[in-house]
């Protein structure tokens, strides 16, 4: 068990964005988190990595209660987070972006920062300004920054948004490649990515876990179909 939440809750002025969520992640698994817009997916992962504090409940990472830890301490414990809305150092070079990501975890693993660029298919662009990359490439850079941290838990918030079909295929291969070593929590709307990469799927609806299971089980679940997948 690498991550556990108990009764995790976050309210925004009466809006119950996340409501009493009990959630566990096994070491090495790839978990997809799906749900309709506004279901509380981003809020939920923000509670995990400490971007926002919970209203109540607890988060345990690798056996330690991290509920009270600030975000940067959690990241240093081996979490990595990529933003839904691309967040990179636009004014710095591509290489400097991954170096900054790798350095905060200095001494954890041996792989060089530029390997991470290779793995997402951005090699040869080291000297470009990150802000000059195309939108899709900026998304890939953000994923590379996640990889460069050699995290134990990688949280990806809609990583394939804005990627081309070819890049999505590359992304699926990358996730399958990482699976086993790295625990991955993936917020994803693209069903083919969910079906082909996730070991298990959790469905969030109105801030609560609606269902959990293998991709096939979730696909067949009538409640999920009603809430999210559509009946088509």
């Amino acid at each position, binding site marked *: 068990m690498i991550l556990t939440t108990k009764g995790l809750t976050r309210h925004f002025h009466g809006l119950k964005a996340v409501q009493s969520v009990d959630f566990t992640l096994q070491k090495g698994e790839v978990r997809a988190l799906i749900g309709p817009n506004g279901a509380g997916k981003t809020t939920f992962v923000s509670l995990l990595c400490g971007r926002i504090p919970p209203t109540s409940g607890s988060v345990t990472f690798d056996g330690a209660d991290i509920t009270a830890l600030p975000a940067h301490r959690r990241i240093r414990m081996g979490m990595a987070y990529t933003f839904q809305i691309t967040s990179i*150092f*636009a004014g710095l070079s591509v290489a400097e972006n991954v170096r900054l990501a790798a350095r905060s975890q200095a001494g954890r693993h041996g792989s060089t920062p530029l390997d991470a660029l290779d793995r997402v298919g951005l090699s040869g662009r080291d000297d470009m300004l990150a802000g000059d990359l195309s939108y899709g490439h900026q998304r890939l850079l953000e994923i590379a920054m996640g990889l460069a*941290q050699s995290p134990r838990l990688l949280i990806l918030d809609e990583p394939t948004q804005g990627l081309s079909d070819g890049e999505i295929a590359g992304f699926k291969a990358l996730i399958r490649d990482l699976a086993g070593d790295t625990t991955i929590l993936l917020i994803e709307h693209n069903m083919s990515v969910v079906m082909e990469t996730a070991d298990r799927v959790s469905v969030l609806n109105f801030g609560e876990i609606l269902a959990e299971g293998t991709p096939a089980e979730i696909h067949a679940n009538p409640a999920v179909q009603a809430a999210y997948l559509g009946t088509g």
Partner: protein
Amino acid sequence: MIRSLALHLGLVALLFALHFVLPPYHHGNLARVMVLATYAIGYNLLFGYTGLLSLGHALFFAAGMYGMALSVQYLGAAPAPALLLGLVAGLVVAGITGALALRTTGVAFMIVTLMFAQAGYLTILYFGEYTRGDEGFVIQQAQRVLWGLDLSQPTWRYMAAWALFSACLLGSLALIRRPFGRTLIAIRENEERARMLGYDTFAHKWVAVVLSGGISALAGAAYGLLFGYAGASFASVQYSIFPLLWVLLGGAGTILGPFVGTLFMFYLIDLSSGITTAYMLMAGVVLVLLTLFAPQGLIGELRRRVWGWLP
């Protein structure tokens, strides 16, 4: 790496050589510019490299100046310990005000730093019995002999200013090459991303305030000692705006920018006041033109157009 080191060492060597060739008037000016540029280097560390716009750096400049001057005047301190006390005063003031001001961001940070500086200015006026307020007080020549070198003499004054400026210039160059400096730049570029990469952004910003305040205080202490005067006007809001202008003109977030901006503005006012009594109008027009056509400052434009490698 090598060429940027060569460039900055070249400037240091050039300033040393200028000591032997400049006519007395410009020699005196350049000594003053070097001390003020040191102040600008301190300001640039926070504004240009960390992305925090302070409107209250006069507080640190004055803390250094009065920390030095009061200990000379009332404790009979020698110049070296007096300079050190000025530096310590600046570090302490920066440490406390920084910890409080950094609880805010953006415009609120500007206002809070401005308010701290105004509080400092009024405190100096309130204790006018000791500080002599706006009138200020003179530091006697006999009190300005550092290790046998009479700092009231143009030669030693210039050399002291040169040594201080060179140390701070090369120190800031070294700092921004180190991981700590790279992290400050990352915070300037995208603080939330830096935080979510595991950097303690508050601690980094606080250290940046303390370093910036310390360099500013050192410049203030040196200014008082070299030019033999301490007064409340150095704590006024004007002296918080000056380093902002110098850094903007020279190029925020460049190592050479603070010096170039200070030199440019000093001579802009000096030359235009020789032509007309409306010299502030001329200076103003030039500043507006520069802001329009070189918004990144002189060195910033040079970096953007020609020398992309400039640190």
